[in-house]
């Protein structure tokens, strides 16, 4: 069955993704940590689909398509920023003074 261990693995991977987003300043590594979090959510969807039927698999498809769209647009934005600043470090991307 492996439901409990799968959910625990999902929780650990999600926490690692959050840690990466908080620790790093490289914009591309930040995007990769977001992908890691989306993967963790997918794992819990798949694990719970064993109990609740194949609707969880459909949700995995939607998460994957959103992740693909997010990666495409986000990396295009990063390329645009790199063209202006010659850097993807978040310390140099402070146009909004955040």
């Amino acid at each position, binding site marked *: 069955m*492996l439901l*409990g*261990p799968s*959910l*625990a*693995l*999902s*929780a*650990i*991977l*999600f*926490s*690692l*993704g*959050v*840690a*990466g987003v*908080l*620790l*790093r*300043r*490289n914009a*591309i*590594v930040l*995007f*990769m*940590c977001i*992908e*890691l979090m989306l*993967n963790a959510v*997918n*794992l819990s969807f*798949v694990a719970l*689909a*064993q*109990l*609740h*039927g*194949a*609707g969880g*698999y*459909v949700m*995995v*498809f*939607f998460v*994957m*398509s959103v*992740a*693909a*769209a997010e*990666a*495409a*647009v986000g*990396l*295009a934005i*990063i*390329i*645009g920023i790199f*063209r202006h600043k010659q850097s993807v*470090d978040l310390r140099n991307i402070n146009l909004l003074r955040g």
Partner: protein
Amino acid sequence: MTEVVFYVFAAMAVLSAALCILQRSPMAAVLWLVSTMFSLAAIYVLLNAQFIAAIQVLVYAGAIMVLFLFVIMLLNLGDAQSDFRGTSTVAATLVIVGLLAVELLALLYYSPRRLAAEFSQWPSYSDPATLFVAGQITQQEAVARGVVGAVATPLFQVYLIPFEITSVLLLAAIVGAVVLAKRNV
């Protein structure tokens, strides 16, 4: 046997994810993330989701990660400086992530037996004892309609409208990526 394989791949996934967020070079981080995604694909197979495992390898480890690698090589970020935040931020991160992990690990109490007890309070469910047997629902569907058919039937019947909206989302992403990456907008 299944448990042993599961724990091996789970350890591989956690180790690769930890190395992914700790590697200084973005290129090494991408490769460790690919390793995490392959381990997750193996775990999907153990959870009776063979089609999702194939899609995981094709779309995530194949397409999305190649996109990341391509951008890193295009921007020539292979030999990056250390980009970790300062000590106070690291301490705050450890506290926040520790709390989050404890909260998420509370999901372990989400057991089939407790679920069955909760669902038995509801009148619409017939017999919880037959409803929550290990992986029974998805296995029955896979036997009846095939591995792909078990996914396709709800996708094109129950979730048809969200599926069509997804195509609009992807179209918007394509147009947005082309517009953003063009040199003179």
